[in-house]
């Protein structure tokens, strides 16, 4: 039944977008993390989406294909008094760009809402179809 598969498509999108929101939350939380003992700071994570065909012909869901780490150089701040400062007085912070993450977050939550609406419409139509033979 096509309406059921509409529900499935919307749920794949909800899943993918909530994973994206999770990575954004993790990026924002680590926006000011400095290097660990091995000299690596936190790298911003980005999800990569891909289309996944559903069991019902014609419908395409979406899934997170991979989570990639950004290879932008770490943010260096001159803080000679900082315990993590290197010999020239610079501290490496994570390469998270907070503005970028906020834009991503808005986009993800809009997508989430939109697919939730799509799911609600499919659910209401299914409910309606039960009334076809009703009084």
């Amino acid at each position, binding site marked *: *039944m*096509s*309406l059921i*598969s*509409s529900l499935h*498509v*919307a749920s*794949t*999108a909800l899943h*993918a977008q909530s994973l994206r929101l999770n990575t954004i939350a993790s990026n924002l939380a680590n926006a000011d993390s400095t290097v660990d003992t091995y000299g690596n700071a936190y790298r911003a994570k980005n999800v*990569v*989406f*891909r*289309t996944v065909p559903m069991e*019902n*012909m*014609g*419908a*395409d*869901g*979406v899934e997170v294909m991979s989570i990639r780490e950004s290879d932008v150089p770490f943010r260096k701040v001159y803080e000679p008094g900082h315990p993590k400062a290197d010999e020239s007085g610079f501290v490496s912070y994570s390469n998270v760009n907070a503005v970028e993450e906020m834009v991503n977050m808005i*986009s993800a939550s809009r*997508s989430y809402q*939109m*697919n939730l609406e*799509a799911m609600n*419409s*499919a659910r*209401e*139509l299914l409910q*309606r*179809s039960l*009334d*076809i*033979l*009703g*009084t």
Partner: protein
Amino acid sequence: MNPVPDYDPLVFGETALRLRTYRQQILGSNLANAETPGFRAKDVNFAAALREQLEGQAYGSRLPLAVTTSGHMPSSTYRPGMPTQLFRTSAQPSMDGNTVDLDIERSHFAENVTKTEAQMRFLAGAFRSRVNAMTPDGR
């Protein structure tokens, strides 16, 4: 003037509803893949698909199965496959090859939901009038 072919309301209702829910699924896929790189928005030509399906059902298949032995079943229950999916042309394709335009998709989505609901009511009405005709004293 276009003569309107006289289809059985139940056959028409079932076919139209099937195509409507199929289109619903395609439009839902477009929304789900609004941010997938390389995804191309799809849709069906509803009017053409409906005509094709109704004529396929009313006048038999355009490619009927040959019946050469008594064991062969005739193709009277032939149903053409689901309609061809067409790619939507995008006015503003994005850098990653995605052609989903959310404004367009949402308006088509809303339209399709409303029309599906209308079709369900028509079908329910067709059933109700049949039930009424079978009920003595119109009760």
